[in-house]
């Protein structure tokens, strides 16, 4: 297989297979949760479930003061790499062009130097997250194989994207093929790992807020 063939496979069938697994997997996982259902609360309410749930979906994005003070390293690295991933993923010009090809519409991109800066910051924050995971007493205790695997598979598209953009080492088609394949790997593993939190955290936060809100507490 030539590098052009590899790139075409990655951009064509590879992407299709990965997307199908990703979408089907996410749908199955969410149904798996929702179909379990939960019992209606028979106690007299002191507040609203819906309002409490929606409130917590948003408010839980910001930690309370004491928690921030006690876990600032984890929180700061976490914020940076999440924001960085989002920006690099959805606001770099090549990504928007790529997505426009598939979904038919695009949006304005950020200037290349800005994306480049975000990419470097994201890489640093992801490395920082890994060091924190391996050195923080609690995180090291909790860490399992899946945590390291998902870290690696999240890091891979960022670093291969950076390398491909700057054409370091291999030829352009090879670099691009490796980058796209790394994204496909992430998509395939996504629904079956903790990466699912990107979707399920909305359910979890809603339930948390609803349970507390029903009792009149803003969680």
């Amino acid at each position: 297989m030539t590098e052009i063939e590899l790139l075409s496979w990655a951009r064509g069938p590879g992407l299709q297979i990965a997307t199908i697994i990703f979408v089907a997997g996410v749908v199955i996982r969410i149904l798996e949760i929702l179909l379990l259902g939960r019992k209606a609360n028979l106690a007299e309410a002191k507040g609203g479930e819906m309002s409490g749930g929606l409130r917590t979906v948003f408010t839980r994005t910001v930690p309370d003061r004491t928690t921030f003070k006690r876990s600032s390293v984890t929180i700061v690295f976490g914020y940076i790499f999440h924001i960085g991933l989002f920006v690099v993923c959805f606001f770099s010009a090549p990504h928007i062009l790529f997505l426009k090809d598939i979904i038919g519409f695009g949006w304005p991109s950020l200037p290349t130097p800005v994306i480049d800066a975000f990419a470097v910051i994201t890489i640093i924050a992801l490395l920082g997250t890994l060091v924190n995971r391996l050195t923080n007493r609690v995180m090291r205790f909790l860490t399992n194989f899946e945590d390291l695997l998902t870290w690696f598979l999240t890091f891979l598209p960022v670093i291969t994207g950076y390398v491909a953009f700057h054409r370091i080492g291999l030829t352009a088609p090879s670099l691009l093929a490796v980058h796209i394949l790394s994204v496909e790997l992430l998509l395939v593993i996504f629904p079956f790992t903790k990466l699912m939190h990107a979707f399920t955290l909305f359910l979890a936060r809603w339930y948390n807020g609803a349970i507390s809100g029903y009792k009149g507490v803003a969680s």
Partner: protein
Amino acid sequence: MSASLEKGINAFKRQVDSTVAAFFSSCVHCGLCAEACLFYTETGDPKRTPINKTEPLRRIWKSEFTLVGRVGKMLGLSKKIDDEFLEEWQELVYDSCTLCGRCSMVCPVGNDIALMIRKTREGMAAAGQAPEGLVGATTRAVTIGSPMGVKWPALQAQIKHVEEDTGLKIPVDVEDVEYMLLLSSMEIMNFPEFIEAVAKIFDKAGTTWTISSEAFEATNSGIQIGVSDIAAVLVQRIVDAADKLRVKTVISPECGHAYTAIRWDGPNLVGKAFNFKVRHILEVMDDLRKDGRLKIATKETRKLTYHDPCQISRRGGVIQEPRNLINMVSDNFVEMPDAGKMNWCCGAGGGVSANERADEIRLKVFERKKAQLDEVKPDAIVSACSNCRIHLEDGLEEYNMDIPLLSLTETLAEHLAED
């Protein structure tokens, strides 16, 4: 309670619903919950990280309720649950958690970890992995009617004393009244002043009330140990008595988990909405205050702070009421850092105080409360939970701190206007 591993596993399975599945699906092992838990912050032991305490339930969820887990189970890859494993987790699930729910407030993905631990206890208890102290308290609650073995004649004797001291009649088994007062065994045995205080307040407010000789115990060991069947039996006793006396409102006394048990879990345990309301004594007093029926003659001069009992504040929703009441009797009320819904637990709720094995750790984790108190240096601590009160007194003694503990109800009664 006959228990076995098989029963335990079935009980774990029954606990999995969409909330549990959403929570476990969302955990990213960030460890933030550890820093919210006094059993971690004061011991530095990572195995006491809240989410780690739910591991038995997580294993069941993963292997039985997820696609990947079921495939893994078929291939023999899922992590096993056996007696040895559960025994190892006992200390984490019961001794190192008061179900205070502080972790549930900080988890960035929104997991209600305290609820997950509460559910884990259901499986642990069914598997025969509950601590002896709690099993004893639960057995006494079912057979005698009180976890401390307090029977009606004991309460009758206390009522007689209170009547002699106050000259007020304590209504017993009176029908069609506004309120039916529940009490915790702790109040009956150690703090009968509470009954006296309620009698005075209701007398001045001109309220009708009663104590039921058939259901006076407010605490619910079934909730703490994690056996819903037993918890339901204990709730049903109260429901039967309240229905029989046709009371409008049942009052939960100064006890944290008793409030959760009857107010929030009660109707769900018996599977039926109540015909009466349930209110905490603080809510009742705050309503009387709003109606102008609670009048104060004198004020506290001491610098007061309020310890929020977890099950009343964070897990119960009674947060503003005690503050309204304290401000009525004090011009010198100071809040501890993190007060209110983010307050730190005393360290002995959720069955920890009934579990002798946890005596050492509950006093160790009191250091968190000590740090909070050191910040404000109050002359006295006001609270509204007898269990917190007993443990706070223990802790203060252990750390040579000389700060008196006051019940909010009793404090108000002391300052009541004569007419």
